[in-house]
């Protein structure tokens, strides 16, 4: 008897995965990539914050990273190696507060931030009259501005280095201004020792053009001329009072190339920032030498520096002991061989 064969059987097709380059094709720098995930079970708002952080880290992050409860950091580390992931952003939650850990893979260091306050991107969009989200907003990595970190303390220096390297570097000779759409600001407040974490979208507007004309050029739509006596009124009549207020001299830029339909290289443009979110108020709590492990380099709470030292010294002692033991063993082995 002939056997029935499953005709529907199809050969296995390997899913096509577009590989992101590990190295920037123009400058040759290594592109930092990141994972954003959580340890432990998070409440809904924090899960949303995690999603917002992933969006912030786009495009060089895993937006749809799935994690299970039994996954530990080692699992992520194992994946991170071959995928070229250089940074981990780990959210966790205790009864006291939510925490954000930023670590370099594979060896560390790890910075632990206590999140004092946070607002989600959705909250911020909700409180704006016109939240802005152009389609290509998240296609390029954000710029980063670190402000107020120049106090010369070690842990702050380390923080700046960490955050600078979390986004790919920009070569100002080759960068296209159209790819600079977002900016992440971290502002350190000396008095309170808190960091304000903000995320803005960058928008450029030509200066000296009335709002009506700008909209007319941008939108391709026939303007509403009902209330006007003459066509010339459209150009000459001033609009609302708030128009003139924004043109701050400090915020003007002359562009290297034309940007969009409106912003010409010849004319000056005003830089306007609108917040996208998330918004966080962070406090640097702890710095560890390894990835979520190792000796504590810095601790915000009191004289833990000394404790860390003690620990270190203890560990060192242990290490030396081990070495000694090994040496002894070696000697013994040698003795046996002889």
């Amino acid at each position: 008897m002939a056997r029935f064969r499953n005709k529907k059987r199809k050969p296995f097709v390997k899913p096509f995965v577009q590989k992101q380059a590990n190295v920037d094709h123009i400058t040759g720098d290594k592109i930092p990539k990141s994972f954003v995930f959580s340890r432990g079970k998070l409440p809904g708002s924090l899960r949303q914050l995690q999603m917002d952080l992933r969006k912030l880290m786009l495009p060089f992050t895993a937006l749809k990273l799935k994690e299970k409860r039994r996954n530990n950091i080692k699992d992520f580390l194992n994946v991170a190696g071959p995928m070229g992931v250089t940074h981990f952003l780990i959210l966790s939650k205790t009864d006291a507060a939510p925490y954000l850990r930023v670590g370099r893979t594979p060896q560390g260091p790890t910075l632990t931030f206590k999140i004092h306050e946070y607002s989600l991107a959705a909250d911020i969009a909700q409180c704006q009259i016109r939240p802005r989200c152009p389609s290509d907003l998240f296609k390029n990595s954000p710029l980063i501005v670190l402000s107020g970190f120049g106090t010369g303390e070690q842990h702050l220096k380390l923080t700046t280095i960490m955050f600078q390297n979390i986004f790919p570097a920009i070569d100002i000779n080759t960068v296209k201004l159209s790819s600079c759409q977002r900016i992440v600001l971290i502002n350190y407040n000396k008095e309170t020792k808190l960091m304000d974490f903000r995320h803005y979208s960058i928008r450029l507007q030509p200066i000296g053009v009335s709002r009506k004309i700008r909209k007319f050029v941008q939108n391709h739509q026939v303007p509403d001329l009902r209330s006007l006596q003459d066509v010339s009124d459209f150009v000459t009549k001033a609009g609302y009072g708030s128009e003139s207020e924004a043109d701050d001299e400090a915020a003007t830029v002359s562009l290297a190339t034309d940007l969009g339909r409106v912003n010409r290289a010849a004319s000056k443009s005003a830089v306007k920032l609108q917040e996208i979110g998330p918004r966080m108020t962070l406090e640097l709590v702890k710095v560890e030498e390894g990835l979520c492990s190792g000796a504590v380099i810095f601790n915000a709470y009191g004289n833990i520096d000394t404790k860390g030292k003690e620990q270190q010294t203890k560990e060192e002692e242990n290490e030396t002991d081990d070495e000694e033991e090994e040496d002894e063993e070696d000697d013994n082995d040698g003795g046996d061989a002889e």
Partner: protein
Amino acid sequence: MAAELDEGTKKRKTSCTKSNSRNAIKRNKKLKKNHAVAENFGIRKMDRKMKKMLRKKARDYNSDDDDEDNGEKEAGNSEGEGSSDNEDSGEENIDEGNEDPEEVLADDDGEVQPGIMRFSDGCKSFQMAFKKITKTATTDDVLGPVLSAHKKLVIEKLAEEEAERKVKGEAKKEKRLLGEKGHLKPANYLDSHEKYLIGIATRGVVKLFNAVNKAQHAQKGLNPSRSKDEKAIKKRRKEAFFSQLSKTSSQTPGKVAASTIHEHGDGPEWAPLRDNYMLTNSKLKDWDKMPETMDVDDFRMPQDTHTSSDED
């Protein structure tokens, strides 16, 4: 059934309750006829009688619903009209009701079989009881009509349930509050702090854009991927770099760090001029070892300047 209804009508007179229908009257007449027929034809033929009785029963059964409906509909019918007719027919029907089952069901002795209740009696008592219940005015109680014996129990149970729910709700609320800890809904307006932060960020962006503008102005109209242009670009960049050096030896350099614009509150802005430049700590060895972090100091010059300076 018919008998019962008639009794109902009889009662209506005294108790002033509901109502009468024309259908009922008609049917009573019919019944009379049937009765007469039954008397004329044989008492001897039991199956015929049985048949008749069954038919009658079926008719009564079927007409029951209609009757009630009609009764309700025609509740407002004039009482005067029905009163005189009903009295007569009612009396007759009572007799009939008494005779009919005897004819059919009674044994030779004429006694009613045990276990079989007179239809009319049962219905009457039920009617009475039901009416009594429906007549009683219920108090506007939260619990609704509940037998008084259980009232206390029910109240206790409800109170207990509510308390339980309250406790549960509070626990849930507490849990949610704990989860939401630190979650802050931003205000609709921009406060001074936010404005200050936006100002800082704007300054950063402006700095970067100006730097980009200056850098890219030099290589305008040249394609960096072509080798001929590349040389020209290199030359121009070198010139630009030297002009920068000669011009701004004391001021801030025009070219700012690549992606990272670092603003310091105090001290000179060029990193090497600061006191804490290249501060090294034995504890910070691990990340210092990594080559990338090493060369990315907080003030990295653009690549071309590195190369050009190396060449010279």
